[in-house]
């Protein structure tokens, strides 16, 4: 498919002296769940504000399905948005908010909405002033998923949800992907990103430092290998890609492998290895690799 759900070119945003977003080139295609990661203040929310036309880029452009993001009236017919820190008018009930968003939004599948209200265990008769932050978030999630808009922009959508609701959220995201909707998901929950995202973009200090599939990210990163030998442990120092070698007792050795594993595997095979276990890094370890000890 040639159209992109989200496309940005040289997108930058400067707030006085702070360069919040620096020359972002991003593409999200239909049927894809794109995870947007980065520490606090990296520029994720700024990107979303620019994509929604809530803020104006200092330089560069953004398009939603090839419509300029600044053309809100047309572009927003193709998207639904869940803001971070959802707030509502305290007197309106959940049902009234859903009605308001239905009538001012891009259109709603009423049947699916009823199903989502059920699944997210939302009591729509209560006024929003009595909702907990998780319940306020559920109203926004139900409204957004029920639109079946071709693009869902979700900014930290599960920060207040309990594990059961979080599971419903993941199901709803995967259903959206199956229908061919694109999802841009900003999240700090790396297990969630790992579970639902096809590709991940990592933002750091306003710059996109990596875009890859979750599996691809792993490949780029270090795996932990443990091997057991019947006799003497071979000297693995100097084998390409092997580092941090720690010899344990009883012919056990542990090391960290980065890059292509062929050389290391040859060295293990030559020493008649009896058992090998490879543990791939979690997204959290990858994430910490990018940011650990470097400040922002």
């Amino acid at each position, binding site marked *: 498919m040639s159209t992109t759900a989200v496309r940005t070119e040289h997108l930058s945003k400067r707030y006085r002296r702070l360069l919040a977003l620096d020359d972002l080139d991003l593409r999200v295609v239909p049927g894809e769940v794109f995870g947007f990661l980065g520490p606090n203040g990296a520029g994720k929310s700024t990107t979303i504000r620019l994509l929604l036309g809530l803020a104006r880029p200092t330089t560069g452009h953004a398009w939603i399905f090839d419509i300029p993001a600044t053309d809100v009236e047309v572009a927003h*017919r193709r998207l639904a948005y869940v803001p971070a820190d959802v707030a509502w008018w305290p007197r309106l009930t959940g049902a009234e908010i859903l009605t308001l968003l239905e009538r001012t939004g891009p259109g709603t599948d009423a049947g699916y909405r009823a199903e989502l209200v059920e699944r997210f265990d939302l009591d729509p008769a209560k006024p929003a002033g009595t909702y907990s932050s998780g319940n306020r978030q559920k109203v926004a999630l139900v409204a957004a998923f029920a639109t079946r808009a071709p693009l869902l922009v979700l900014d930290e959508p599960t920060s207040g949800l309990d594990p059961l609701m979080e599971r419903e959220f993941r199901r709803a995201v995967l259903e959206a992907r199956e229908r061919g909707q694109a999802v841009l998901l900003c999240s700090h929950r790396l297990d969630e990103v790992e579970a639902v995202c096809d590709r991940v973009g990592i933002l750091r200090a306003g710059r996109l430092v990596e875009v890859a599939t979750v599996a691809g990210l792993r490949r780029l990163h270090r795996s932990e290998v443990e091997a057991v030998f019947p006799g003497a442990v071979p000297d693995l120092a100097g084998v390409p890609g092997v580092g941090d070698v720690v010899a344990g007792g009883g012919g056990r050795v542990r090391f960290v492998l980065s890059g292509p594993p062929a050389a290391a595997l040859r060295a293990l095979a030559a020493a008649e290895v009896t058992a090998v276990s490879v543990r791939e890094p979690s997204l959290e370890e990858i994430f910490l690799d990018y940011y650990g000890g470097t400040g922002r």
Partner: protein
Amino acid sequence: MTAGRAVTGLAVRQVRWGAAIVAVLAAGMSLLVAATYAETVGSGSGAASLASLAGNPAIRTLFGPPVALDDPGGFAVWRTGTFLAVLLGAWGLLAVTRTTRGAEEAGRWDLLLAGRITLAGAVGRHVAVVAAAMVAAGAAITAALLAAGTDPAGAILHGAGLALLGVFFAGTAGLTAQIFPTRAAGTGAALGVLGASLLLRMVADGMTVLSWLRWFSPFGLVELSRPYEDDRLVPLLVLAVSATAAVVAVPTAARRRDLHGGWLPPGTGRAPRTVLLGSVTGFAVRRMLRPLLGWSAGIGAYFLLIGLTVKSLTGFLTDNPQFADLAGQAGFAGVQTVEGCVATLFALLAIPIGGFAAARIAAASADEEARRPASLYGGPVTRSRFLAGEAAAAAGGAVVLAAVAGLATWSGVTMTGAGLGLTAALAGAVNVLPVVALGLGAAILALGLFPRAVAAVGAIPTVGGFLLLVVTERVSLPGTLLGLSPFTHLAPVPATTPNWAGAIGMSAVAAGLGLIGAAAYRRRDLRA
């Protein structure tokens, strides 16, 4: 106790600028009126004939009974007292609900109260700081009147009375902010108490048999102290006890409730009411209805009372032509006719209606800052449509309020048997709408350029214009400066035909302000 002191410091930081402006304004007006007494009223026959004002119930109802008008201090009390009392009371109650319930509603107190300070302690300290600001404003008034060379006893009594009235409404707002769980409801209830107190004072002054009612209104108690004449202390002692009781009761009221809660348990659910949820404009109207009802009640009651006084007022002015002449010199010609009198009184209407319109745009700005419309921003609605919806709702509300005022005045006048056509009454009320439009335009300008100062900027054409008119009445200012006040361009409708050129000019300026504001609003980053 450093935790408590830190919270007091926080409260001071939030109100210090507003408190300084209120004190300077109150002191400045008092000084100006007292110091220019000799030139404006004079010592001879002018002062003597002013005394005959006291005999007229209409004058008493509108401005309070004139007391000691032969004294510069007494004249300043009569001329500025009611205005300053409303200013202090309204600012004090708005400051209290903003810094207490408003901060709590926005979630800013959750973290604060996780520390060593209690809810009762935080609320109590914020109310105490506003009360202290009121005392400072009262002291500034006293200092100004002393500087003008008036009698010290009267100066102290008047300053103390206004300060105590301010403290009373700060305490009242502290209480309503505990009872109701939202800032809007707390503010509305406290404003209701203020409006009712003012009306009670007006009714008590208008009808001799009901004059005892003054003891039940802070405005009435301040009036009963009669500074520069009798210097009575007892009414102020009653007010001091009530004000202290209100302030002291605030922490107790706060102990009876949960954070984010009120005295009444929250609603557990209801059937959806989906009327006016179909568009952003409809939704703007829906959010306006409740405040519109409150403002309609207040404006309706006030102008009904005004209508009831008109017959007596015109009769008085016919019998005492020197006052009609005085009013004529101040630009209010023909006040001895019902139409002329009503026209003069309608000019005031621009201030509350302009306040209402600016408050609606300020509410939209507050919504934006609280991120409530964030999900709506994700919908296919342009900012122009958002703004057009808010502006249309505010303008529609203003027209409704003008109609309410016209209808109420007509009812009052008709009840007393004086002749005033309904069309004439409505025309007089609608005549002030171009001034209201200026206030709305200024508020929209601020929404685009200074979104945190919408209410203040929106009040400049109405409140600022009125103050400019009052000041120019005292000291001779160049005509061009006087021309800046929108009130200069209002014709006394229904006594004469409208000043069409003025109305068109003001509407054009209002539209220009609004368009600049709209362009800025479209271009700026939203705060959500």
